[in-house]
């Protein structure tokens, strides 16, 4: 009986960890996205420093959109247990 309870507990912990692993996988895409986005923005700012203000604003808008995807995964990892 005790062993059974232990196995069930281990199973619950394993499932909870699985959602965390899922979030880790889900973070790859937005991570790549923000990497490309900021890299390109810095590149353009280095090429044309006089447009840095506009580029920085648009960079943050883009980061906001991309980041939302990763954060959906984060919230769902808590909700789906």
């Amino acid at each position: 009986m005790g062993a059974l309870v232990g196995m069930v507990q281990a199973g619950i912990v394993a499932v909870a960890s699985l959602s965390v692993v899922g979030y880790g996988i889900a973070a790859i895409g937005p991570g790549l996205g923000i990497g490309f986005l900021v890299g390109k923005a810095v590149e353009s700012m280095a090429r044309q420093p006089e447009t840095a203000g506009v580029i920085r604003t648009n960079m943050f808008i883009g980061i906001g959109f991309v980041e939302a995807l990763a954060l959906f995964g984060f919230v769902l990892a808590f909700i789906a247990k």
Partner: protein
Amino acid sequence: MIGLIFARAGFKAPTTQDFVWPCIGPHLSIFGANACINKEVLLMFLAGLIVVVLFIGAFRKPKLVPTGLQNFMEVVVDFVQNGIVLEVVGRQGLPYVPYLTTLFFFVFVGNVFGIIPGLQFPVNSRMAMPLFLALLSWVLFNVAGVRRHGWGGYTKMVLFPSGVPWPMYILVTPIEFVSTIIVRPITLSVRLLANMIAGHLLLTIFFVGTAYLLQPSITSLFAVASFTLGTILVAFELFVAGLQAYIFTILTAVYLAGALSMEH
């Protein structure tokens, strides 16, 4: 045996239950929902009070050459007006500067509560706050669009963008409806919420971990590392608080610009 391996012996990791505060004083039941005053509500009032006091204190008797508090608050207003509104919306967005400034400052104060010693709870890490603010922004940009273009003009602009061959509207109209009307307030609020939850959990886990590692003295070396990283993360959370307030405000401005623009 497996259970022993998985059990974290004695260490209680922080969970989302740490965001639920007990009631202070009486609580009412409104349509089955539990309404009462707790730490979250008190901090929300405190954030509102700080915003009101700072703005009234700075601009009640404005001087031509600003000093002290007025100087600081003028930097905030100038940042929102020149850095966000004029750059994203243009001159037609100037009537919305007061709302966006208040929004920026309120979100920032609410976020910064997460790292102020003694308070240490970000107000925006409960869904009610960011969702209400996002719905306010949603009403704002829709009303602005309707007032600018009329019901028919605004609906046509949002749902039937020009320059699309008409059979494509079968595909485009539902997508535009979902992305503009439904998804916008959700992403706006979830972005702020999840950032604040993540930041608070991160700080909690490092400082709870520090306390836990100090107890058997053999691991106190790791406690030093945990404490150091936690302290660095406090500075990082200050950066995140400002960044999230900025992103919340700038996205509201972007939605406003989309509703106010003539062509889509």
